[in-house]
């Protein structure tokens, strides 16, 4: 990470006549593409030599912050270390050239990997089958809900279109339900963020025959374990609904508890969270969906082949590396790290729910609200000190949410460094609030004008040139 803005666009480095490629000669004779087929206007792609391209993207990468750069306590995103051996395995040439339409007897190794990974995930979750078609977490949610919808349709239970979600759920849950043609019903949370069981009973009494499923994370969005989960599952099952586990928060459960044992019937896993595959600046991820025995026949076709296969290769390399001995240490260490930070900062940051948390916890801003320094300011000031910010303003249960998730890979020194800086920012908020409110100061760019971006709508180079 370099704190000076690089700032160029590849189009601005382009010179007519330069080239960055080499192609074989045409030995086929003259087969000319007929003019009638061809586009009239040329695509205005850049023309650059190879070194210019390499330097450009290397310089761009220097204006980026990744897990390899520093501590990335982004709540609900599980920014764990992405082991290098995973990358090496995913790049093996014996898999690169496999065409997905190749006959099965020529892709035995790849198919074996799919089946070995499935077996591992079944063991870790207590479910019976997985489909790897979903390309991402949100795609997995959709796939899981489609599976549930298919199940109810197969039984002629066409009216089961309601999905219960806690009011603290991530916005993707209701959006996935809507795309699946299902309707969301929200169940209230108690003051401690867990599901209000009495309100759930009321909903089930009112909507019983219409309930398709209940969708939950456990631990929930606040990092708290829903201790009444067996009762919740029974209530939903008794009215004919299925239990859906949003695997976003699966990491702390490794070595502690399996969704299948909690009573869930369908779940998705974010391989890019719990199973250490890189986030890649926002993908590619992988969102395999697991089900209890008997539900696998209801998996929908949400993509043509085996999903993001190379992501699965990485996840399998991770499982093999850890083995049964160390997989079960992932959850406890992640939970320990979260509790250690929470306990070390709760005297200066507002902790609305003071209890043992799982992998993450939420502060409601600074304890001292008189300074006018907001969660946004704290987050931006953290960037100055070389940390990625926690997740901010989510969950919506609090005004100044600051959600912290360290992972099992972080050392005590790293956590102590973060704690010291968080305390220092709390101090700065009192002694020099302007410094914090105008942060960041040591980053390639300062705070950006979001309103201008939405107003002028310049989203490609052609527009940029036209409006310059």
């Amino acid at each position: 990470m370099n704190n000076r803005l690089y700032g160029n666009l590849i189009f601005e480095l382009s010179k007519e006549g330069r080239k960055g490629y080499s192609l074989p000669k045409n030995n086929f004779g003259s087969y000319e593409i007929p003019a009638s087929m061809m586009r009239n206007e040329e695509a205005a792609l850049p023309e650059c030599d190879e070194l210019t391209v390499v330097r450009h993207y290397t310089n761009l990468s220097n204006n980026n912050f990744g897990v390899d750069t520093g501590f990335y306590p982004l709540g609900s995103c599980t920014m764990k270390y992405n082991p290098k051996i995973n990358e090496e395995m995913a790049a093996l040439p014996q898999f690169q050239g496999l065409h997905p339409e190749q006959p099965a007897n020529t892709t035995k190794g790849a198919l074996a990997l799919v089946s070995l990974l499935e077996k591992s995930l079944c063991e870790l979750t207590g479910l019976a089958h997985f489909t790897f078609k979903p390309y991402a977490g949100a795609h997995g949610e959709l796939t899981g809900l489609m599976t549930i919808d298919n199940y109810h349709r197969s039984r002629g239970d066409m009216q089961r279109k309601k999905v219960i979600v806690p009011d603290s759920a991530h916005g993707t849950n209701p959006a996935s339900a809507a795309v699946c043609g299902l309707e969301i019903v929200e169940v209230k949370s108690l003051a401690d963020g867990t599901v209000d069981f009495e309100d759930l009973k009321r909903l089930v009494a009112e909507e019983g025959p219409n309930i398709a499923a209940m969708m939950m994370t456990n631990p929930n969005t606040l990092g708290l374990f829903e201790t009444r989960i067996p009762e919740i599952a029974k209530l939903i099952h008794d009215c004919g609904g299925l239990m859906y586990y949003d695997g976003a928060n699966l990491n702390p459960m490794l070595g502690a508890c399996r969704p299948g044992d909690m009573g869930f019937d369908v779940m998705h896993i974010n391989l890019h969270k719990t199973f250490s595959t890189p986030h890649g600046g926002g993908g590619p991820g992988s969102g395999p969906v697991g089900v209890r025995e008997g539900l696998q026949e209801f998996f929908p076709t949400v993509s043509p082949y085996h999903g993001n296969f190379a992501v699965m290769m990485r996840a399998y390399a991770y499982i093999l590396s850890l083995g049964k001995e160390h997989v079960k240490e992932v959850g406890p260490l992640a939970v320990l790290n979260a509790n250690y930070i929470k306990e070390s900062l709760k005297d200066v940051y507002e902790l609305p729910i003071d209890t043992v948390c799982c992998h993450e916890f939420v502060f409601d801003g600074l304890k001292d609200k008189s300074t006018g320094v907001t969660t946004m300011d704290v987050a931006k000031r953290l960037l100055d000190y070389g940390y990625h910010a926690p997740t901010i303003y989510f969950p919506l249960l609090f005004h100044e949410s600051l959600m912290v998730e360290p992972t099992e890979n972080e050392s005590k020194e790293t956590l102590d460094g973060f704690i010291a800086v968080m305390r220092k920012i709390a101090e700065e908020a009192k002694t020099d609030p302007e410094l914090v409110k105008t942060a960041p100061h040591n980053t390639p760019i300062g705070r950006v004008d979001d309103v201008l971006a939405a107003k002028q709508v310049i989203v490609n180079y052609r527009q940029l040139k036209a409006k310059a």
Partner: protein
Amino acid sequence: MTYKYFPHTEDELQAMLEKAGVKSLDGLYAQIPESIRFRGDYKLPSEMSEQEVRDCFAKLGSQNEQLTCFAGFGVYDHYTPSVIPSLLARSEFLTSYTPYQAEISQGTLHYIFEYQSMMAELTGMDISNASMYDGTTAAAEAAMMAVAAGKKQGKVLVSEGINPRTRAVLDTYALHKGIELVTIPMKDGATDLSALTSQLSSLEGVAGVMVQQPNVYGIVEDFTGFAETCHEHKALFIIDSVAADLAVLKTPGEWGADIAVGDGQSLGIPMLFGGPYVGYMCCTEKLIRKMPGRIVGMTKDNREQRAFVLTLQAREQHIRRQKATSNICSNQSLMALFVTVYLSLMGKQGMKEAAQLSYAGAHYLCEQLLKTGKFRLAYDKPFFNEFFVKYDGDTDALYKRFIDAGFLGGVKYEDGILFAVTEKRTKEEIDNLVKIAAL
């Protein structure tokens, strides 16, 4: 407990447990009811050293057959410049999250802006989003977008020329979302405009019309009059294309499309048994607020520097919640970087040259196959780098002969074979394939 990914020493563990107010790691889970606590050992292999992991994968890899690829069907064996894997391995790109903190994510935001610029150029459309999962889901999102944009219209017409893999995904989304898909028939290997016209006249509530270019048979269709017919009936015109082909073929923009979608795999991405690839979606300026997915826009920071940021987020799933018409979040960002670097290297000229090579190779192969007297083109229509032939003989036996000789001899489809050729295929490889075909 010491392991290469866990830094905790025994002393540190004790100090941290004390701070956390529990006596043991087990104490951190005291709230979980004992009845559902997992206490056993996972039935998994024991931990493996790095060398053992390598050996395990090498063994799996050796069970795959490495075939010279003449298959397409939406996935093509194009050349990957050596620069790309090297740049994609930059951990500042690889290990970062979605660029929510713009101040430390200009690298990602910059390349997404470049990606959007290049896809708009390739498709000849006004606007591109920041990527989709793949071509098939991009097509499904386009159908949902058309229905959402058209308000209460619930039908989408889909050409019979769409790849059945795409159609299967479309069918899935349509079933659950309550969209009715109606097939537009083909005539002589191309979408039948007169059938489309009469469907549009007789059916109520058609929100969109979807065609594929080149179509499933590899045929380059003539869409003259399609956009006008669609627009007369207030339906959006959607074209699904292989991205690389658009460097030379008449673009969705030039055909008058409202939405252009497809897969970007053809832009140098390895076939890798199906993924990861990247889907693209572009549209007219008028439709930008109906488009799903992330969009990066230009703005400035408080130091008056040009900067890039995620914008128009009010369209997105996490804000619209149950009113959302798509649930797509960030996706395939690193693959968007892949194609951005590819297009930067290939540039204007390289894309045309590669397309010319693919075209020449495919037409040479086709000619040679026809010369054997055992093949005939199913349709007498222009094609680009993929074509559909019927074989006078046992197709299954022929296909097996190809594999035994180390060739993936196309994709068996209907009662024929679809062959595809890219710039990677040499004359020698083609001649050898033809020799086997002639036996």
